[in-house]
């Protein structure tokens, strides 16, 4: 296997007494679309922000974020600024909040072209129009002067993507890019991301709480719970044969389109309070398959088949049977 494009290792984030991220690690291969899934508060968005050093100064970050042979967490602000935008782009959940309300869209794109590629004037405007066109905004040249509030929600997210892609980064971090959009627009944006990944040969890390989105778009998935990676591996295999009781619980709580009017099986309880995490597996208190050993110590990530890891003590038993209809 070739060296990964981005490698996050043992990432830990402390904010005061809280430890919203205990231990998160994953690799992103070139050209890959990686999904990070988890419930609200599991630390998935925080992980993206930690990668690019966007956390407030009150947070302390440990671990390593390896990018092109250097640790992003150790870089000077100036060196980090050279990576941000130019090599790694980011798209946010709520495009209305993430676009500057008082600057025209065109200017927000040309600014990146100017800062990162040294393009100016007419050349920059032409390139900006091309970018808007590429993300599917009609009459791109006329829209360069429009302000974010003149765009619809889906158009704003497209514009946001165009801005993030202006400097042709090798990796795009997408933080719930479709959560604020309605379902038809969601689908368009996901297709757009897939198409752009192929056209620009970049990698995408897609953070979402929607397993449907992951199933539709991603090559591999990382399942995060209470600030820890619980399981990761190829999407098709994990969805067919989860190797973690938590993943299985998540999949059981999804509606199955092949069966009408079924009862969904929710996961009992709620995620642990980050101020008092359990001593053992963080999922154990809610886990129907928990055994005494689960409560004792945090289970380490262990191989669970080719290219798969799981932090579940009963991974072997789980993968032995295909996900049975509940």
């Amino acid at each position: 296997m070739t060296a990964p494009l981005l490698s996050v290792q043992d990432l830990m984030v402390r904010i005061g007494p809280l430890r919203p991220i205990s231990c998160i690690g994953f690799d992103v291969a070139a050209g890959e679309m990686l999904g990070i899934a988890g419930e609200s508060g599991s630390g998935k968005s925080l992980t993206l922000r930690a990668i690019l050093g966007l956390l407030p100064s009150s947070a302390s970050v440990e671990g390593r974020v390896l990018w092109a042979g250097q640790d992003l967490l150790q870089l000077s602000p100036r060196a980090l600024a050279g990576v941000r935008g130019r090599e790694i782009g980011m798209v946010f959940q709520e495009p209305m909040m993430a676009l500057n309300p008082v600057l025209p869209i065109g200017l927000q794109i040309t600014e990146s072209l100017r800062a990162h590629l040294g393009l100016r004037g007419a050349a920059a405007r032409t390139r900006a129009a091309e970018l808007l066109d590429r993300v599917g905004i009609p009459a791109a040249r006329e829209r360069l002067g429009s302000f974010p509030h003149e765009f619809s929600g889906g158009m704003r997210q497209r514009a946001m993507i165009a801005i993030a892609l202006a400097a042709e980064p090798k990796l795009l971090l997408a933080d719930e890019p479709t959560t604020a959009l309605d379902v038809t627009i969601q689908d368009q944006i996901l297709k757009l991301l897939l198409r752009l990944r192929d056209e620009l040969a970049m990698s995408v890390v897609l953070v979402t709480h929607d397993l449907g989105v992951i199933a539709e778009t991603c090559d591999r998935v990382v399942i995060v719970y209470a600030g820890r990676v619980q399981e990761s591996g190829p999407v098709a295999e994990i969805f067919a044969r989860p190797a973690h009781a938590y993943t299985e619980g998540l999949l059981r709580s999804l509606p199955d389109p092949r069966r009408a009017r079924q009862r969904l099986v929710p996961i009992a309880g709620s995620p642990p309070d980050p101020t008092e995490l359990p001593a053992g597996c963080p999922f154990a208190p809610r886990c129907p398959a928990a055994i005494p050993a689960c409560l004792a110590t945090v289970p380490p990530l262990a191989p669970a088949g080719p290219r798969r890891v799981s932090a579940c003590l009963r991974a072997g038993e789980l993968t032995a049977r295909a996900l049975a209809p509940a």
Partner: protein
Amino acid sequence: MSQALTVASRRRWAWKVAPGPAIGAVLMGLLLLCAIAPGALAPYSPLAFDYHALLKPPSAAHWFGTDNFGRDILSRVIYASRIDMQIAVFSTSFPFLFGTALGCLLGYFGGIGDTIFLRLVDMIITMPFLVLVIAIVAVLGPGLLNMYIAISVVDWIFYARIVRAEVLVQKRRDYIAAAEVMGYGPTRIIFRHLLPNVVTPAIIYWMTDAALAVLLGSSLGYLGLGAQPPTAEWGVLIADGKNFMTTAWWMSIFPGFAIVAAGAGFSLVGDGVAAALRRRG
């Protein structure tokens, strides 16, 4: 084509002319006209003595009457508007520019500079503004230039405070995080991305402040600390007239009206600008 047209027309500021700002604009227009071309409007020289017409009440020859040296009050009020408009602009421009820029930096970076600033604010606001300015003028010596300096030294702090508070709110918004992950440096983020989003309250305060500056300037002129006689300045004119209040009321009343007109003009226009900016944002 029609779509492009509507987009273009929406982009222009929708100025709905409310009566208040319209009156303000007329007052401001008149004063600006006086300030720009006093020679064209004033019937007499502001400094010309006429010993045949001392302390004359308003008449067809002297609409606002004459003073104890026979100088035409209307001409003096018109020439004075040049000085007073100058006060409004000069004594507020530096505080606006410096205070806004500093407020951006303090709010964005925080740290020790911000802490020192807050203590400075605490100190300054315990003292009445006028008293503080008078104290500084007393040290520097009376005169217009020293008055500008005195006002500027104190006034920037209010702009910085307003802008700093707004920056603290705006810098937590995602578009600033987005600019940071685009790899932009702090200078670009502060002045390109943050400034246009935080400057509105400072502009609105600037309008109010210009009105206050006219009042302050004429107050200091009245007290003999600002413009010096025989320069025509509204506060100086009122001071000139105060000994003749019972016999020649017109000497003080008309400059007083001019001050009221300037204050009302700035405030009403400021309201209009505030409404327009709010509608846009």
